[in-house]
């Protein structure tokens, strides 16, 4: 049985949907950030799948996935630092406590 492009796209889609659902239902701020990273990982799987199966003469999909990894790490570090600063005031990791910046 041969694995096609749609198998990988399905896994990326499921991971993306898991991230969306987790970011909606989670009340912990850190868990929401982890869910956003899941979404980025699902997008990366789709990028690399398309790059592999749809012709990657210039490795465009691989390079864009590389940028996404960098941007994801930057976004996570920034969000966690902002959360840490706000935690010093709110003393809570519940999402409902953070209704304003």
């Amino acid at each position, binding site marked *: 049985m041969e694995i096609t492009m749609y198998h990988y796209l399905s896994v990326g889609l499921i991971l993306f949907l898991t*991230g969306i659902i987790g970011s909606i239902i989670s009340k912990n701020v850190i*868990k929401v950030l*982890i869910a956003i990273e899941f979404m980025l990982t699902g997008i*990366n799987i789709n990028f690399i799948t398309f790059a592999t199966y749809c012709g990657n003469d210039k490795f465009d999909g691989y390079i864009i996935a590389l940028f996404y*990894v960098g941007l994801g790490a930057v976004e996570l570090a920034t969000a966690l630092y902002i959360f840490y600063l706000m935690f010093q005031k709110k003393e809570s990791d519940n999402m409902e406590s953070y209704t304003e910046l």
Partner: protein
Amino acid sequence: MINNPIIFYIASFLIITFALCSMFLKNIIYSLLCAIMVFFTASIFFYTLGSEYNAIIQAVIYGIAVPVIIGLSVMFTTGKNKTQKSSVLPLVLAIGTALFVMAFVYVIMISLAMSPDSFHFMDIQQFNSYDVISEFTRGIFIDYVWAFELLSLLLTIIIAGFTMLKIKGVHKWK
């Protein structure tokens, strides 16, 4: 590219299971451990898709660096909370250990050229390592040089912002 259904289905099962565990476990530490497994499994997907460079970057940044940052945040922000016991942790650790053992065995078999015959490789796109590095370099430093410089500028701004916040404090912000 490795077109092996066994690896694909095992990795798919693990990545979905760990993602769901990460979202629905109440303890944030266990959730973080499951997230680490999701990121490592994603790097296995990248490897099987033929992008070894992305797999290494994913494993190093998302598998090691990002969990360290999240772990530090958990330590700084949830130290007063009580630790919640969970019976899922041994199962998660067992599955994770099995995944690592399988991955290492497979990598060793590939490196020693002892892969079984069922592990057939697709011959549609085969690149040697020199071509891959040269294409990546050309893409980053020529085709997408502005995106690369923008990302570098963003990193510099973030580091400068962190330093400014640390020096000036956050009392005005409060």
